[in-house]
């Protein structure tokens, strides 16, 4: 047997043993063990253990593969099934370590030292509860400790083998499998969210009951999830084609006036629905506009707009409406617009069917006439835009209050992330005190709008105060920027970190107490009004945040591709050279700080109005770290990355509050893994990833790629 491979297997085994023991002793397995993923079958704790085993098997196999193929050689020697022996060995070692832990847990009381080494943990490791008898019968060792130890060792071997085999599978099989399993874990984890979102009378309830039972997925739900996810993953690459095809048919065969009318009607009804939801609703139950023409069976299609928009109209926000008097008019308008829309859709379907029949009878050569490419591209974009806008507008109504609250938090961080992306990602100035600008935004909003007489603020409205807040914070940005102009990199980071803390401590200090309220902060910050709309509650604030996100995104995207963005980019890459190429680096540094601060201030302002009370405790350094962390997770400099990063770093932890004890641990581990596996972020901006990976594209590679692209181009043209 190959000695090196043996060593690899042993090393990975010990690595796995350490990870598994750590997970157990830190209490993760126990805490997660209380949460069912598939009710009665498997808990999150078990999934974690299983995943650890699988990962060890997989990684061992990868190491073996890299050992067999040391360099990127043209002819790869694929590792064979025989090589899974090493994976199995690694799995067994991991299993043995856990077995040993079980013996220790049984004989000795080590809880004085390790609090989590509890009988509960032993029970979990025995695998007697939780996993169904059917699964247990695969590992028939009966009851008791000895059987349990043996079982976990065998399980380790099986998982090692499975992990190794997973590596050997072709990617087209492996990906759907992994995604399927991952989706089960995710849906199981998010069962609470899904209950809030789906457990409402109507179609969604039956859907929920199909998938879930108790706190986890049902067995059939898990099966459906795996199959559906695997199928979608497997056919993922065909989806754009399919989409293009559908749009092509629609644009080719629907007359332009019909398309325009439909789009207009859809826009109108969306807007009306939005207006209704934002506070012009009357009482519950709202009178759902009837949908004429379509009346069938049990799944009541007559209520189709109402059903789809069900969440929209549900009274989850505030029930007291603003403009009660106008409600019937709006309601009637919605009915009218949607009736017309559904008539239009029905007409289109009839038209399409007629065309199809016509085409079939003609038995022509060309089945579907292709519209001109520009029209098609435009149509694709427009439809995608409509789908996106509709989805964004529906979200808070559909998911309910608590998830909306999470979305609001995510949105606040998206805005902040976009702002810090200007400073760090675009201009390359590592700012660790970004929270200061968020705080200045929040405090100035509070001071300008509070109705608390003891503060003696200006008592302005939110909208009146906003321009002032933005200006004040931008000036604060300049004030922070000016003294640190000569600093770079690490030094800049340390100084800005200091500034961030100074801001908080000043707000906390007795010195400023008469104005800023010290530790108690400022209270009685009024809600935001706009016209008749009162932005109270997360479901309505969501729209405000959404608009701020869109504006911030628009601004940063526009800046990125402009002369200013290029100057920042040059400064980020090489400050001295940027200067020599004619960029006034002093001015552009200040500009970056001011722009970053300006965007953060909007986030801060909404934050202040949302809470109604602000105090220094909300502006700790963690906010800066999270804002920076979401950049790193998403990919520094990448705008979609900011959104993804915010969901990962702010959204997920909010949804998984029950594990908040381990939040920082998981956070840290995720960051380390991220840096090791994908340092360029989840959605890297162009150019950056390559450099971080150290793969500089050689000239030859480049020429070859260009030639291939050309060949592919001429192929498709032919």
């Amino acid at each position: 047997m190959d000695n090196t491979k043996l060593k690899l297997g042993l090393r990975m085994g010990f690595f796995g043993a350490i990870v598994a023991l750590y997970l157990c002793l830190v209490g993760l397995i126990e805490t997660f063990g209380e949460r069912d993923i598939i009710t009665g079958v498997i808990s999150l704790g078990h999934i974690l253990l299983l995943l650890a085993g699988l990962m060890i098997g997989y990684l061992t196999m990868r190491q073996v593969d890299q050992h067999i193929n040391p360099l990127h050689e043209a002819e790869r020697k694929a590792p064979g099934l025989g090589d899974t022996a090493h994976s199995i060995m690694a799995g067994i070692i991991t299993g043995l370590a856990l077995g040993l832990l079980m013996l220790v847990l049984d004989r000795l009381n080590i809880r004085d030292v390790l609090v989590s080494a509890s009988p509960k943990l032993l029970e979990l490791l025995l695998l007697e509860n939780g996993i169904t008898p059917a699964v247990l019968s695969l590992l028939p060792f009966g009851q008791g400790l000895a059987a349990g130890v043996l079982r976990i060792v065998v399980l380790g071997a099986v998982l090692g083998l499975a992990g190794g085999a997973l590596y050997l599978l072709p990617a087209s099989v492996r990906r759907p499998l992994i995604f399927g399993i991952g989706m089960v874990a995710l849906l199981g984890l998010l069962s609470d969210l899904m209950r809030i979102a789906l457990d409402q009378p109507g179609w969604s309830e039956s859907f929920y009951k199909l998938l879930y039972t108790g706190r986890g997925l049902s067995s059939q739900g898990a099966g459906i999830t795996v199959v559906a996810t695997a199928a979608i993953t497997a056919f993922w690459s065909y989806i754009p084609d399919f989409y293009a095809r559908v749009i092509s048919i629609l644009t080719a065969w629907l007359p332009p006036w019909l398309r325009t009318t439909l789009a207009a009607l859809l826009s109108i009804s969306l807007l009306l629905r939005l207006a209704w939801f934002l506070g012009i609703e009357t009482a519950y139950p709202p009178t759902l506009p009837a949908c004429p023409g379509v009346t069938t069976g049990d799944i009541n299609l007559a209520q189709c707009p109402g059903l789809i928009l069900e969440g929209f109209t549900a009274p989850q926000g505030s029930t007291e409406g603003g403009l009660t008097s106008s409600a019937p008019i709006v309601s009637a308008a919605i009915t009218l617009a949607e009736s017309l829309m559904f008539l239009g859709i029905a007409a289109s379907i009839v038209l399409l069917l007629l065309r199809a029949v016509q085409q079939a009878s003609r038995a022509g050569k060309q089945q579907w006439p292709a519209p001109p490419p520009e029209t098609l591209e435009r149509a694709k974009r427009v439809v995608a835009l409509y789908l996106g806008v509709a989805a964004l507008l529906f979200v808070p109504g559909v998911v309910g209050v608590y998830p909306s609250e999470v979305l609001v938090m995510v949105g606040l961080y998206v805005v902040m992330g976009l702002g810090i992306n200007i400073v760090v990602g675009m201009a390359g100035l590592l700012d660790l005190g970004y929270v200061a600008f968020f705080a200045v935004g929040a405090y100035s909003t509070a001071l300008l709008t509070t109705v608390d007489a003891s503060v003696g603020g200006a008592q302005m409205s939110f909208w009146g105060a906003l321009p002032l807040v933005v200006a004040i914070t931008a000036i604060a940005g300049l004030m922070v920027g000016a003294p640190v102009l000569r600093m770079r990199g690490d030094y800049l980071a340390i100084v800005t970190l200091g500034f961030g803390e100074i801001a908080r401590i000043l707000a906390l200090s007795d010195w400023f107490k008469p104005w800023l309220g010290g530790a108690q902060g400022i209270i009685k910050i009024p809600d935001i009004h706009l016209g008749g709309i009162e932005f109270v509650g997360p479901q309505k604030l969501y729209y405000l945040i959404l608009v701020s996100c869109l504006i911030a995104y628009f601004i940063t995207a526009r800046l990125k591709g402009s002369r200013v963005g290029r100057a920042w980019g040059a400064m980020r890459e090489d400050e001295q050279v940027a200067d020599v190429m004619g960029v006034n680096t002093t001015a552009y540094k200040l500009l970056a700080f001011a722009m970053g601060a300006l965007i953060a201030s909007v986030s801060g302002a909404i934050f202040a109005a949302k809470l109604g009370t602000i105090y220094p405790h909300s502006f700790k350094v963690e906010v800066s770290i999270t804002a920076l962390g979401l950049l790193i997770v998403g990919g520094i400099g990448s705008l979609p990355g900011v959104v993804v990063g915010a969901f990962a770093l702010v959204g997920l932890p909010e949804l998984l509050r029950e594990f908040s004890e381990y939040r920082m641990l998981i956070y840290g581990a995720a960051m380390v893994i991220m840096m090791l596996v994908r340092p360029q972020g989840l959605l890297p901006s162009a150019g950056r990833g390559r450099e971080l990976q150290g793969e500089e594209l050689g000239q030859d590679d480049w020429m070859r790629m260009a030639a291939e692209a050309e060949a592919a181009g001429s192929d498709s043209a032919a």
Partner: protein
Amino acid sequence: MPHLLESHGLVKSFGGLNAVDDLDFHIEEGEIVSLIGPNGAGKTTFFNLVTGFYPADGGKVTFGGHNLLGLSPYQITKLGLARTFQTVRLFQEMTILENVMVGQHCRSRSGVLGAIFRPPSYRVEEARIREKAEEQLAFFGSRLAGYRLDQPANSLSYANRRRLEIARAMGTEAKLILMDEPSAGMNPKETEEIASLIGKLRDERGFTILFIEHDMKVVKGVSDRVVAMDYGHKIAEGSYENVANDEHVIEAYLGRKATREEQDES
């Protein structure tokens, strides 16, 4: 008529060492001048003084009548002076086109509001910046042009990085380009190309060029005039033949021929 670039009694010292010492220098419009000298002669320091990287300790530098000392690098660039670096310093993560577009920064003016709202004036300017940048890149033939424009600069080969650096300097619409060892690290064929390129830059684009060079073939091939430096001083000036045969220059490069007496002593 004043010289395009002129220095009188220029001094720069690092600690006790005078890297540039009482240097008088001038270059006429349309001239190609090479600056030679052994390592540590103060050539790059001279470039750094002229482009505003370092503050001078004394003397005077004028460019087209403007005093350069005390100005920031970006202001000097705006006056019409651009440079390349001894070690290639590109904006690695930016695309090839963007690298050159940055050069146009000092010839354009739109700011944040323009970028966000994109009024017609912004779009016209942006189109102009792009057009000019493409024009500079086209100068290098197919090497930097075409569908290569949107590739990041770090995807280029070494020689093409050097070319891109020149294109970026051209992009500032400078009158005078300072090149710091343009042929460093290139193979003989590429070196030859650089030499002809320097000639073309003047003949076709009208740039005045001052370059530091160690490769005497290049120096001989394109220079109208050669200036030799050692220990911060100008030690010789004139045509290539004159300078190459100058005894100070030979001494600076090869050392002084030992005299009979010294040999006897040893």
